[in-house]
């Protein structure tokens, strides 16, 4: 247990050194309020924000004035759904289409919106986590105002056919929101090519600081503000800006843009090595998510006859950090709603572990992980009363 292996990069990532360096002065000398345009200290802060905004806009093929900063991917998701829903209040448009495998930031917001008369259709996904475009088309109603579908899933890594979905939304004149929190930096995003009207992002998933999110809003989109108050973000999102965090977000995106191809290639190789390693060394495992249309850093398996938390605890003892289900719900007793939506039975879903890699990981780390998992699963299975799929399916 010499080296610590952090394999939970979908939960959050280490803040990159370059990012911290860039942020530093905005804690120290350059602490001005960006709303204070009449003295230099304020103007410097404002310039820093605008620089970050441009970095994001360029990366997404968007315009600067279409980029807004929020406090988290969660806030962006809330803004997209509530902002569009409330802008359409009492206008005969009260229907949202989303999927069963969205993040809770989407699902719980949709549930909440029921009290305002908003109805939501939750699309099914197949075994690999993909939605069915025909089902999407069939679920569109005259009242549909918004389609909200995640670019890539945080648990199983499945990447949806966003461009095709965007075309369907566009044809029907329906706004299209994409939760790209996990996709940013790992999948090519072009808001125009992909017909995206609204998009959520989060800095801490790509080596940026925690507590800062991003939102793309296509110009001309009818959407209410979510946080009301001062004139920040061109009057669209109030609250004194976390300047240092925005600077960090900008830097993280700059790095992501610079390293994009390399990053994807390197991680895909590691990911495939881990998938093969587990498949070949541990019996009775099920790969969750799509075999190829998946995030380059996501490996999610179910290990039959054992339970996930025990695996995680044993991994932790070996210095490996991973996750069962999504970070936000660990500590919950429910099996992941995503895994259940792909058709896993509860018992199998309970025994699922997600490894999400980063550029810090080397090939020998992958092999160590496989070896460790092999031992852990064997140990736990030896004391499991479940021995086969029949046992697993009881109840």
């Amino acid at each position, binding site marked *: 247990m010499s080296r610590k292996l952090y394999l939970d990069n979908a939960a959050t990532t280490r803040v990159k050194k370059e990012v911290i360096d860039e942020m530093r002065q905005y804690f120290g000398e350059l602490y001005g309020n960006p709303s204070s345009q009449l003295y230099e200290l304020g103007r410097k802060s404002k310039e820093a924000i605008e620089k970050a905004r441009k970095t994001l806009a360029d990366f997404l093929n968007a315009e600067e004035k279409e980029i807004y900063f929020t406090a988290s991917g969660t806030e962006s998701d809330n803004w997209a759904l509530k902002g569009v829903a409330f802008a359409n209040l009492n206008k005969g448009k009260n229907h949202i289409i989303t999927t069963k495998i969205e993040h809770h930031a989407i699902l719980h917001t949709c549930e909440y919106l029921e009290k305002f008369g908003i109805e939501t259709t939750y699309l099914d996904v197949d075994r690999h986590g993909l939605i069915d475009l025909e089902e999407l088309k069939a679920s569109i109603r005259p009242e549909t105002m918004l389609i909200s579908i995640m670019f890539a899933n945080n648990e199983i890594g499945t990447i949806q056919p966003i461009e095709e979905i965007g075309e369907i939304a566009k044809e029907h004149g329906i706004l299209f929101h994409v939760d790209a929190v996990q996709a940013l930096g790992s999948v090519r995003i072009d808001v125009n090519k992909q017909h995206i009207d609204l998009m959520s992002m989060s800095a801490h998933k790509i080596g940026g600081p925690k507590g800062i999110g991003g939102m793309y809003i296509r110009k001309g989109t009818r959407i209410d503000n979510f946080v009301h108050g001062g004139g920040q973000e061109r009057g669209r999102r109030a609250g004194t800006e976390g300047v240092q965090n925005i600077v960090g977000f900008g830097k993280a995106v700059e790095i992501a843009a610079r390293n994009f191809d390399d990053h994807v290639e390197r991680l895909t190789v590691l990911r495939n090595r881990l998938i093969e390693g587990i498949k070949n060394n541990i019996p009775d495992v099920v790969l969750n998510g799509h075999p190829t249309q998946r995030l380059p850093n996501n490996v999610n398996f179910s290990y039959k006859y054992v339970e996930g*938390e025990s695996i995680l605890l044993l991994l932790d003892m070996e210095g490996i950090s991973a996750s069962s289900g999504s970070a936000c719900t660990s500590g919950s007793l429910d099996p992941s709603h995503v895994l259940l939506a792909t058709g896993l039975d509860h018992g199998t879903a309970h025994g699922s572990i997600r490894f999400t890699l980063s550029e810090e990981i080397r090939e020998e780390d992958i092999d160590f992980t496989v070896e460790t998992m092999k031992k852990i699963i064997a140990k736990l299975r030896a*004391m499991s009363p479940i021995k086969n799929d029949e046992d697993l399916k009881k109840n």
Partner: protein
Amino acid sequence: MYTEIVMDHFRNPRNAGSMENADGIGQVGNPKCGDIMKIYLKIKDDIIEDVKFETFGCGSAIASSSIATELIKGKSIHEAVEISNKAVVEALGGLPPVKVHCSVLAEQAVKSALYDYAQKTNKVIKGLENYKPEDDEIHCQH
């Protein structure tokens, strides 16, 4: 999150495994809930001479099973039936609130194994007269 005792029992579970020719076997929980406990008892002259457990479940489920087997090993069946989930929690030095159900499961697994023994041997164990294994199934708290 877990106490040192829980972690110790989780890391080095006592009496883990199955048992041939057990005198009583009890199993509670189900995979849907994410917890199954199976207790095997070897009983002689109403004394629990040996005990084994198999558990599918989280860290505290395994630790609860492990400590429960220690609590009852060498005890008479009349003493064993008195072991409550509180005793399990105490012996573990505490459990997080969301994990207390694991101790309940452990208590019930023991009772279920004792019941099985009582059924097979036609004995009456005070405290188990009205015990029905099905009642025991705690519902998933989901």
